[in-house]
């Protein structure tokens, strides 16, 4: 790595603010503040998870039916992309601590690319929902849903393949709820019998994944800023607070998706 001391920019960037006694106190303060900020993020999403729980408890049939309209495979790929990006981010923090400048920049760049990958896949998914009118609340296109389900039985390529095991499980749950008639709908045999208020699922889906997407975007802006500073040579063994804190934020964004994926895509 390049000499730390030779870089005037680096020398100027790790000063101790006048109101702190020690560097340690400064670092600990910044880190505690970041953790508190993450607490607020958890609570904000907590409101949505709460709404999810309430509607899932009161309308399980909607969730059982509607989640089959999501693409599990794309969701799984996105999960892997985000998990991998968390790994590269954690490694980037380590590289910053060790003063490995080039590795730090490379890892931040990979993390940023993963962010783009995630949003790209998400855009493909959103586009699919948009085209079929699987939208929130008043914009949900029930007529299109019937067409979609009718076509679904003949052309497996337009949607997820029917899963007999999941189907039987759904049938059992719905029978318990006296919604046995609705179960056939899931795979398009009788488009007239769709559970009421499917749009509730999509309202929650779009708000949760949308807000998460905004957080991914915010995390990418942070990582882009870190990358720029890293390329400039701002970070080193004595000054890696920003990388550390940015990493914490990125892990939280990842963590929220780890909860969203099974709750929205893997219901049964």
């Amino acid at each position, binding site marked *: 790595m390049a000499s730390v001391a030779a870089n005037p920019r680096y020398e100027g960037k790790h000063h101790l*603010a*006048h*109101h*702190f*006694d020690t560097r340690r*106190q400064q670092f*600990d*303060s*910044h880190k*505690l*503040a970041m953790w*508190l*900020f993450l*607490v*607020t*993020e*958890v*609570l*904000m*999403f*907590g*409101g*949505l998870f*709460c*709404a999810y729980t*309430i*509607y899932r408890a009161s*309308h399980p049939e909607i969730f059982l039916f509607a989640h089959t309209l999501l693409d599990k495979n794309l969701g799984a790929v996105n999960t892997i992309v985000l998990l991998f990006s968390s790994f590269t981010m954690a490694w980037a923090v380590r590289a910053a601590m060790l003063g490995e400048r080039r590795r730090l920049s490379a890892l931040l760049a990979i993390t940023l690319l993963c962010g783009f990958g995630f949003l790209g896949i998400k855009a493909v998914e959103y586009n699919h929902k948009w085209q079929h009118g699987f939208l*929130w*609340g*008043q*914009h949900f296109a029930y007529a299109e849903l019937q067409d979609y389900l009718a076509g679904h039985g003949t052309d497996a390529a337009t949607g997820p393949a029917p899963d007999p095991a999941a189907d039987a499980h759904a049938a059992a749950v719905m029978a318990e709820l006296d919604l046995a008639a609705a179960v056939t709908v899931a795979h398009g045999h009788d488009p007239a019998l769709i559970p*009421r*208020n499917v*749009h*509730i699922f999509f*309202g*929650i889906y*779009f*708000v949760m994944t949308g*807000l998460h997407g905004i957080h991914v975007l915010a995390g990418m802006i942070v990582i882009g800023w870190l990358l720029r500073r890293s390329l400039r040579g701002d970070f080193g063994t004595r000054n890696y607070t920003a990388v550390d804190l940015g990493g914490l934020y990125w892990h939280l964004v990842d963590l929220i998706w780890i909860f969203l994926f099974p709750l929205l895509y893997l219901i049964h």
Partner: protein
Amino acid sequence: MNTGAATIADRSNGAAGRPHGENYLNCASGWRSWLFTLDHKRIGVMYLAAILFSFFLGGIFALLVRTELISPGHTIMDADSYNRAFTLHGAIMTFLFIIPGIPAALGNFVLPLLLGAKDVALPRLNLASFHIYAIGAVMAVAAILLGGVDTGWTFYTPYSTTTSGQVVMVTLAVFVLGFSSIFTGINFIVTIHKMRPAGMGWFRMPLMLWALYATAIIQVLATPVLAITVLLLVAERVLGIGVFDPALGGDPVLFQHFFWFYSHPAVYIMILPAMGVISELISTHSRKTIFGYRAIAYSSIAIAVFSFLVWGHHMFVSGQSPLATVIFSALTFSVSIPSAVKVFNWLATMYKGAIKLETPMVYALSFIFLFGIGGLTGLFLATLATDVHLHDSYFVVAHFHYTMMGGVVIAFLAGIFHWWPKMFGRLFSQKWGNIGAVLVFAGFNLTFFSQFVMGSKGMPRRYYSYPPEFEIYHQLSTYGSYLLAVGLFVAAGVLLHSLLAGRRAPANPWGSATLEWQAASPPSHHNFDGPVILTDPYDYSGLVWDAEEQGFVRTAHEEVVR
């Protein structure tokens, strides 16, 4: 000599050589030196100015509402304007004035000083908090100019999603203001955790710090839930997601749950710092050690915890399950325990103290009286059977104003008068200060006690008109509000006069033992000029009046030995 005092002494180096008369107010000039300052004192002063302006604005709407209600039917405005006026009164007072009031204005100024520190832990975040507050305030004012809102400050669905007006703009302003509140909260928690001087353990902290700490915890934990609530409301209005819309299978009561999960803790964001102010003032102006220090400290934390468990008492008549209402009722009663612990400890502190009726103390006494009434009437509302009758009546309005206006605003005024000499280096007229305080007290009781009476007789809140038998109470209430306004103008006049013609304040005019009074009045840019001597915050034995200084000085200080 313990290590604590030595450590603090090291912090305050460098400033001893400052030019005579230089302080944080005049050390730099120009609007940029204020608007982009990182100095917690200047940020506190800017917050104070902005918050007092909001108080003025909210007060104008209050007087308009009261004037309209002086007679049944049309008096000065039509029903729609009236709906907008009381909504704006509530929204401005809640989100722009009373939530940030004590923590952001007084707290910003005194918190680092109480710690003997040079600044809060995160000065840039502190400035960002103020800038975000200003943006939120501008959005709120813009919404008023663009037509206002008529939903009431609670924005209940489905009315808020169907009415016309600037609901989106106002709720987004609330969202933005929430960020400001969260940033202040994060900053205070970090500062209290990480910036305490060696030697100041948790139970050596002044009680104001305990109160601000408990407040900050609620700000950090509750405000994000409001953020998601208003975002969902905006999504409901703009996109029609249907989460709160019964026509689309949604649940409007869910909005109430979300809203009160924040907004009930929010009333403790308001009252807890007020209680902190009162704890400092009662002890200082009685010149007696605070009674039950640990009980007061723990009760702040207890209130913060309980505050999250009682939101359901706003929905006793909203179709909540009977089991839930019983549990929420019991939990609501339990909040009265830590609140009463504080009140009894303040009374015990005054017992056999050398009470001096200085203006801050007059406000503090009036706080105890009014908060006592506000707290006790809360029990009527926590009781299920009586609440069914009193719900949505003026009784609730009166209860709320006794705790929030009689409690928080009075404590805010008490705190302003108490720290005014420290903030601006000027003494004010005690006589006129006390006259203002008495007018405020009398006007307040006339305004709101009559509302207790009419509420218990069945006058519903928010109504534009009413049967003639309620007219006398409305008239008393309106005249009371005018008297209250006169009292507040007297108080404002006293403070403005002190800025222009007040005597120079000594470092310690009240004989308080907390650390901020060791700084000059007003403090220098770096707060403390010499070494800070860590003492027990409520030990007044070493402080004596010095006729030459016209203030209190410390003779034989006993340093804290751990």
